[in-house]
């Protein structure tokens, strides 16, 4: 399927028009993913810096166990969701593919990138309108969501496989090669931790950019990821 370039001026982005952008699986994934990342960030932080010591018998307590369980359960949701989302990039509409194949070879795309940067630097007075992601958003998504998720999934399952020990599927698939690649287990922990903070930074910027664009770019952002439709305003 040909990837279209949508820039301002195209009939589709005319004021008052509404286009269907995000199909149901994409929207569902977005919100499940948001929830999973929230759980992962909080539980992950608590695994590295646990809550105050619990009183009583060890056998009466399982706090770390539950926190780690929540982390691992959310991690499975996150990873399976990512795989499902990657599948949808193949079978869904062309907007679903943006996250996985940014149009890096497209001059027009880079021109749009420049325009967006100027817009964010308060130099350009008007942003262009896009049906899907603008190039800057697209690149951020690709680097932080797509590659970032892969990084977190690979390092995460490598750490998970340590507990599973030799023979565990995650140990066989990830731990055996990820640990030597980074040096040792502690290094993988540190990188996974940094990756988590990167995700937090992404969420901050992502939420801000979505709200800001919704207000200032004359097109719906938040509504689009809820009902799938993007409406352009004048």
């Amino acid at each position, binding site marked *: 399927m040909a990837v279209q370039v949508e820039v301002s001026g195209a009939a589709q982005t005319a004021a008052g028009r509404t286009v269907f952008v995000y199909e149901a699986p994409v929207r569902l994934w977005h919100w499940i993913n948001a929830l999973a990342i929230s759980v992962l960030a909080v539980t992950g932080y608590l695994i*590295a*810096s*646990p*809550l*105050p*010591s*619990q009183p009583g018998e*060890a*056998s*009466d*307590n*399982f*706090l*770390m*166990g539950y*926190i780690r369980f929540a982390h691992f359960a959310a991690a499975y949701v996150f990873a399976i969701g990512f795989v499902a989302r990657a599948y949808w990039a193949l079978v869904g509409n062309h907007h679903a593919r943006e996250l996985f194949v940014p149009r890096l070879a497209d001059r027009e795309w880079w021109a749009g990138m420049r325009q967006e940067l100027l817009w*964010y630097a*308060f130099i350009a*007075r008007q942003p262009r309108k896009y049906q899907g992601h603008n190039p800057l958003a697209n690149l951020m998504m690709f680097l932080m969501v797509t590659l970032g998720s892969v990084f977190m999934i690979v390092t995460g399952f490598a750490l998970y496989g*340590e*507990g599973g*020990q*030799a023979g565990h599927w995650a140990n066989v698939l990830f731990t*055996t*090669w990820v*640990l*030597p690649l980074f*040096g*040792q*287990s*502690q*290094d993988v*922990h*540190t990188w996974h*931790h*940094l990756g*988590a*903070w*990167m995700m*937090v*930074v992404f969420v*901050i*910027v992502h939420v*801000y950019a979505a709200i*800001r664009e919704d*207000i*200032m770019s004359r097109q719906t952002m938040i509504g689009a990821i809820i009902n799938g439709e993007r409406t352009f305003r004048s």
Partner: protein
Amino acid sequence: MSIETFYEVMRRQGISRRSFMKFCSLTAASLGLGPAFAPRIAHAMETKPRTPVIWLHGLECTCCSESFIRSAHPLAKDVVLSMLSLDYDDTLMAAAGFQAEAIIEDIKKKYKGNYILAVEGNPPLNEDGMFCIHGGRPFVEILRETAADAKAIISWGACASWGCVQAAKPNPTRATPVHKVITDKPIIKVPGCPPIAEVMTGVVTYMLTFDRIPELDRQGRPKMFYGQRIHDKCYRRPHFDGGQFVEHWDDEGARRGYCLYKMGCKGPTTYNACSTTRWNGGVSFPIQSGHGCIGCSEEGFWDKGGFYNRVTDIKAFGVESNADRLGGGVAAVAGAAVAAHAAVSALSRARSNNDKNPGGN
């Protein structure tokens, strides 16, 4: 002189047949091989010509040797030591000077391609290796020469395996682990600072009796001893899972023997047999004595910041920080940037609205 078998050497050392059989079953057990293997070990030791071991010392503190001679089962120590001391270990053998150095030459000729080279410590490469002199010559030269005719190499301890404290940044002598100097021989890493005595004797015995190297993981460590983390077999693990931690030295949790995770225990990231084998004849191991694991068998443990921090330091681009400080800092900057950007956005929007309808809205 025909080449002796292990059994003959042992008998000559005054070890009874009964003790010999005991040693075989103990060794089988410690290698995780099960009782059926004891007769196989015995048979191998009775029939195979013994493999000589040359034990070289580079830049090190001799803690590996100290550990080794404290092997829990005295017989294991006697047996292996009697095998070793017959050959070459400059710390343990009686010979000295030219006489001692002649032994290396002798073994190299007589057992060409057939002896095991055990290396404790590592060669420093700066200044042509002048920071470690062995018999008047740089250690790295002796190492290369002796390794050339060896069948396999055992890298004892964190020094030989990873570099250890003498390789700590900025590593002025360029202390270099053995596998980065000798690249054409099978190398068995037995890391730890020092490694556990039973692990050392276990590895030697395995190699001598079965005439092959034990199964190694991707980092070159024997799987049988380095396949699990301290954390996987730690007796304080129920406290970890229950969220019961020592928060300060000498607090109530410390007295109760809670998990040392918050005191920087590296048990969750350290592959070694301490929590299984323990030390000094199974008496104790660091965590049992109330101190967290420092991760001494892991690569780079000496350069990762405090032994008492759970989230360790990142030393890149000259920044010394840990993941939380760095990540939290970046997140705070991102938050502040977003707030500032939002403020400017609001202003510029207000201005452009004013431009559009100058009479107000």
